[in-house]
């Protein structure tokens, strides 16, 4: 009996702690989102904690409207999605066909090429940004979407991750198809690629999130207002040339948080499992 009471007390204390941490995670979001729906003259008025600190007294969309007037927001959203989706889909294909080749086929120089790919993990983008910028200059790709997409169409991690998967698939599948006269490309597209649904989903998710979050690359490579991506646009709102328009800033942050949050809450089980299964990004 006393043991049970002890367990109950332990659980109540635990729940209280977990709830306090819950608040430190959630309250910043609530405060930010609520500020996005306030008139500017209401921001900073309810400094004494109260109900209106967390919900607007007069609800308005005017900040969002001003944001879309000041920045070419639709264009920015479109740019961000275009870059993130095209990188994700093309890189999934390139990384997996490379992983298939390295994991299933035999050819001269295979180990050397794999070693080369892996050793590139020592050069994260933060280290390579300077020469990559110069290379983009040489190729006349600065200030273009290509500069955001091309470098990430094949990644050492993606290749490693897919090779790992294909290494563990039976070779017999391909060999019997080969005897029936299928080409290696057909074997990959029709047999092995469909097998890889789970790792592709995981890698796709990681790639998409990385591209969506990507900052040092677009902030360095893109100058043109019409080619801005969302994350860079946010920092422009935050440190504008003029006085910061806080309503617009909060609206911008809200716009960048909410869609991803909604997708996450709908698919949270899958997303967490996928990320855990990739172990560590």
């Amino acid at each position, binding site marked *: 009996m006393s043991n049970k009471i002890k367990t109950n007390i332990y659980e109540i204390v635990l729940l209280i702690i977990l709830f306090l941490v819950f608040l430190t995670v959630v309250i910043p979001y609530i405060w930010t989102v609520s500020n996005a729906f306030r008139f500017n003259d209401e921001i900073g008025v309810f400094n004494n904690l109260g109900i209106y600190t967390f919900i607007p007294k007069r609800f308005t969309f005017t900040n969002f409207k001003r944001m879309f007037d000041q920045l070419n927001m639709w264009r920015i959203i479109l740019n961000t999605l275009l870059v993130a989706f095209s990188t994700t889909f093309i890189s999934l294909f390139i990384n997996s066909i*490379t992983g298939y080749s390295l994991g299933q086929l035999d050819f001269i120089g295979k180990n050397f090429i794999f070693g080369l*790919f892996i050793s590139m993990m020592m050069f994260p983008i*933060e280290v390579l940004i300077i020469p990559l910028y*110069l290379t983009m200059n040489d190729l006349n790709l600065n200030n273009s979407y290509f500069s955001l997409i*091309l470098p990430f169409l094949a990644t050492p991690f993606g290749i490693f991750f897919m090779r790992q998967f294909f290494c563990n698939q039976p070779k017999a599948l391909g060999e019997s198809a080969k005897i029936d006269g299928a080409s290696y490309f057909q074997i990959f597209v029709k047999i092995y690629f469909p097998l890889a649904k789970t790792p592709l989903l995981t890698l796709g998710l990681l790639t998409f999130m990385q591209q*969506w979050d990507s900052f040092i690359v677009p902030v360095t490579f893109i100058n043109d207002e019409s080619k801005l991506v969302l994350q860079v646009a946010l920092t422009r709102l935050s440190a504008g040339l003029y006085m910061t328009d806080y309503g617009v800033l909060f609206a*911008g942050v809200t716009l960048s948080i909410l869609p991803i949050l909604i997708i996450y809450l709908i698919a949270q089980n899958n997303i967490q499992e996928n990320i855990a299964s990739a172990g560590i990004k």
Partner: protein
Amino acid sequence: MLEKKKKKNNRIKKDEQINGFVFVLPALLIIGIFNFWPAVRLFLLSFSNYSIMAKKGEFIGISNYLSMFEDKEFINSLKVTIKMAILIVPIQTILALLFAVAINRKKRIYKFFRVVYFIPAITSFVAVAILWKQLLNPSFGLVNSILESLGLPRSQFLSAIPDAFYSTVFVCIWKSWGYFMVIFISGLQDIPSDVKDATRIDGANSFQELIYITIPMLRKTTLLVIVVTTMDAIKLFVPAYTMTAGGPIGTTTTTVYYVWRQAFRLSEIGPASAMSILLFVIIGIIVILQFKIGGEEQYE
């Protein structure tokens, strides 16, 4: 007959050779042009006085490397980065581990907390940084409101020393600890339940179970988390760029941010390249550690 079969086998072998190579060719081109060549070029640049305007530079030996160690601001940025890593890595790892152990239960409510704690991990770092920049705003930020209502003194936070530094550390942890908690939870679920049952039967309490069973069995996960967190801390750029611009007086200038500013604001390509090489050496050591810990088949 045998001869014919051998010939056919040879043809298949050759076919495999060609196809195998053709399939890696796109990746080889991409990584060659956008990883390998820039990596080589970084070494070359670090020995030159390259100018973006003139698009050329001359070989000047190791002077970029020598001046790097005399650059007080660079040394300061290294110190800032190391100090941040020293705080972020243990605090974040311990938080993630403890909460993973506490939350790894079947009841719905724990599942709910797990979902919520992960939210900052799926929010972009820029959004997180701006969000906290406003929460810490000296005039209308929520944190000051809370401090005041608790009868505590207000703070200038991001424009005060050392508040800006600790605020940056806090924001980094706030953003990422939930992610690593999920990694730990998946590690915990890999511990076979009969091991735990046996410990319980032997009369161990939950604290003993944590120290003698859970933590040792999570050794590999923990090491990987430490390595990855260290790497993330060394690569910090967004908080400095977005929240503090590296200030006040350099107390939040991380190395990556400093190097980036040298290269792209001051066009000091050569010196910045030498500094990047130093970063590469540090990161290279960490990557090798990561592989050693992960072992080939389990890595990442």
